[in-house]
Structures are given as structure tokens and as C-alpha cells.
């Protein structure tokens, strides 16, 4: 008998709780919860230091400025009155490549637990650095200068990210930061590799084009352009 009363009490209590719940959930269904609640997660694993993060964020804008500059070069050489479709093709491809570099950096920051806020400031209306070029060689020269400046920024960034410094931690004590080995390795191994290969390629093209132009002028550029268009190595 006692067992039966206890069982009934439990069932009743269960019903009440459920009833209260369903009232609450009915209210919730009228007011949609747009923003999901963030759960507390440990942040010990987010170890990128601020100066390094700042440089990485800045590099995204740099890559997009390079991307827009190549886009403007493509637009210039695609014009009917300039008519250098090979150059245009090459520069349009470079524009998309630089955009991919920026996306790669964003991907890295996301992997390291960054970009949970201030995402809107990453791309700030990037504008091309030039709009007209006197010749194909002029554009290649400008592209090479641009790549060299991007490379310099990456090496400077690697320097910042490997530098250890003293900082006040969350508990108010001084602590020494760590060399960000992984990021620096990624920058030097992955990014710089691509930069150096790209620069060598541009420098080689510029040299060949200059030699062709010296002896054959307009014909040199015309032929060089068709080589670029057909994807031949030059």
C-alpha cells in the first residue's frame, strides 16, 4: 500500500514538472530565441598573442589590396584598345589567388580559436594600387614590387610571432609568452614558399619579355601575350 502511495506521488510530481515545463516552452515558442547561448569553454588552448594576431589580421587586408591590384591589372589588359588577353588572363588568375591567400589566413585564425569577434574589420574596402600601365613589362614590374612588399610583410609577421615578451596574465602576474612555433613554421614553410616561387616566376617573365621587347618591340609583347594566353611557359 505504502509502495503504491509513493509511486503515485512520484508520478504526480513528474506530471507537475512536465506541466510547468510545457507552459514555459509554450512561452518560448512565442518568443523565438534567435541567439543561442554560449557555453563556457576553457580558453587555455587559444594561445596566439595579440601582436601576432594583429599582424595576421592586417595581412588579410594586405592580401586583398594585392588581389584588387591584380584585378585592376586584368581589367586594364582586357580592354579592346590594349588587347593583351594573355596578360589579362594571368592577372585575373593572380587576383583570385591572392583572395585565396586571404581565405587561408582566415582559416588559420579560425583554427587557432580566433575571429569570435571583430570580424567586420578584417576587410576594409581594399582599393587597387594602380589602374593604368604603360606596357606589359610595366605591369610585371609593378607586380614584382607588390609581391616583394607582401613577402616583406610576411617575414615581419613571422618575426613578431616568434618574439617572446613579458606580459601580465589574467591572474595579475608577469609571464613570458611563447614563440609561436607552429604559426611561424606555417608562414615560412607554406606562405613564404609560395611567395618566393611566385616572385621567381614574375622575375623570369619580366626578363624574357624585356629581352624580346629590346629586339622586337611591339612584336615581342604581342608574341609574349599569346604565349601567356595559351598557358605556355615563358
Amino acid at each position, binding site marked *: 500500500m505504502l509502495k503504491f502511495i509513493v509511486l503515485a506521488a512520484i508520478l504526480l510530481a513528474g506530471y507537475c514538472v512536465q506541466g510547468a515545463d510545457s507552459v514555459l516552452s509554450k512561452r518560448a515558442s512565442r518568443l523565438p530565441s534567435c541567439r543561442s547561448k*554560449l557555453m563556457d569553454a576553457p580558453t587555455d588552448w587559444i594561445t596566439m598573442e595579440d601582436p601576432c594576431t594583429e599582424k595576421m589580421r592586417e595581412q588579410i587586408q594586405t592580401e586583398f589590396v594585392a588581389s584588387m591590384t591584380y584585378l585592376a591589372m586584368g581589367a586594364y589588359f582586357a580592354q579592346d584598345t590594349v588587347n593583351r588577353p594573355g596578360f589579362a588572363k594571368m592577372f585575373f588568375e593572380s587576383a*583570385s589567388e591572392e583572395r585565396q591567400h586571404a581565405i587561408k589566413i582566415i582559416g588559420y585564425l579560425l583554427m587557432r580559436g580566433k*575571429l*569570435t569577434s571583430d570580424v567586420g574589420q578584417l576587410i576594409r574596402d581594399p582599393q587597387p594600387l594602380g589602374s593604368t600601365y604603360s606596357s606589359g613589362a610595366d605591369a610585371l614590374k609593378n607586380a614584382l614590387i607588390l609581391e616583394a612588399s607582401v613577402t616583406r610583410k610576411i617575414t615581419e609577421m613571422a618575426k613578431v610571432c616568434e618574439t617572446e615578451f613579458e606580459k601580465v596574465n589574467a591572474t595579475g602576474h608577469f609571464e613570458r609568452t611563447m614563440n609561436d612555433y607552429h604559426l611561424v613554421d606555417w608562414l615560412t614553410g607554406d606562405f613564404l614558399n609560395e611567395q618566393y616561387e611566385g616572385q621567381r616566376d614574375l622575375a623570369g617573365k619580366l626578363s624574357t619579355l624585356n629581352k624580346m621587347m629590346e629586339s622586337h618591340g611591339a612584336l615581342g609583347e604581342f608574341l609574349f601575350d599569346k604565349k601567356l594566353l595559351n598557358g605556355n611557359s615563358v
Partner: protein
Amino acid sequence: MKLQLFVICVISVFCVSYATDTCYSSVKSVCSSTGSSLPLKCNSKYGAFDNEDIMKNVQQYTQDHILKSFHYLLMSSYFGNYEANREGFEKLFRELSDDAWEKSIDLIKFITKRGGHMQFNKITNTENAYDSEKIFEFEKHELGSMAKALELQKNLARGANNIHKKILNTENHDSEVASYIENNFVHKHSDSIRKLSGYTNDLHQLISSDDASLSLYLFDEYLKNTV
């Protein structure tokens, strides 16, 4: 009678030569014995692209695509962070960004094909000038970001319609531009607008249910598998 015919002939020859005047006559002056360092006036500009205002509209439309590719990319990046962690949303917005970027390159190729040039500086006095000054809030929740994407796509659709409207009047009639805009933009816009509107309304229903967080998880997974 013969005289009349002669006059008509002279006038029509004159008219024809006048109409084709710039390119050919510039060639003649360049090739004449006197020589001329004048630039050739030969280009592929005709139809709607003779009208500066219409070209500006196409340039603006291209700039809108570039800008929106940035906005979508940032929205995608936000959903890729470990706290938001919505792979489906990240993928959807990334796809919209890639598409806007590819389209902007395609538009530049089209503008230059038709004898125009691309303008990257801010263009003033165009009807569809998209307000880039507006500061975007990228840290949006799922429903807000979907609604934003829907607005951005409608904005692009409006831009396409503006161009289409201008090239259909008798003065600037240009069937090639119309066909280009129709085949490459307007139908795709209506598809993506319909899709985003569907997502937005689904999301609204889902988060109004008892367990919004599980619904969002499942919807995100659905996006990840279908986008």
C-alpha cells in the same frame, strides 16, 4: 531626275562615311603622307556602351559584386569560429562569396569586351549605389545572417533590373547586354532569393520550437549536406 538621284547618292555616301567616321578616318589620317600621331579611334564600343551613364551602372553593378563577395566572406568566417561552429552556414556564405567574386571578374571581362573600362573608385550618381559606408554587424545569429543574405541578393537583383530597364528603351536598345544580364544574372538571382527566403522562414519556425539549439544544429547539418 538624274540630278535628284545624284544628290541622294552623295548625301547617302556622306551619311555612311560620317556614321563610320571616327575609326576609319582616324586610320586615314594616321596613314596619310602628312602623318599623324593622333591615336586611333577604333574600339569595340557600340549600343548601350556608347552611353556613359549605362556603363557607369554596369561598373557599379560590378563593384557591388566585389563588395558583396567581401561581406559574404566575413559572414562565412564568423560562422567558422569555434563558438558559432556552424559549418553549414559557413559553407553557404562562402559559396555566395565565391560566386559574387567570380561574377565580378566575369562582369569586368564583359565590360571590356564591349569597349568599356572598369572603374574601381567610388562611382557617384548611380541609381543602385550600394551603401558601402554602412557598418555591418557580422556577428549575427543564424536567422539574422540568413535575412541579411536575402537582402543582399535582392539588392543585386535590383541592380540587374536597373541595367535591364535602361537598355530596353529605344534610345539605348542593346539586345546583347540584355541577353547577357538575363542569362547570367536575373534567373540565378531569382533562384538564390527563393532559396534564401525558404531557409529564412524555415529557420524562424525552427527556433520558435521547444528546442531551438537542437533545431539549429540539425538545420546547420542540413545546409552542410545540401549546399
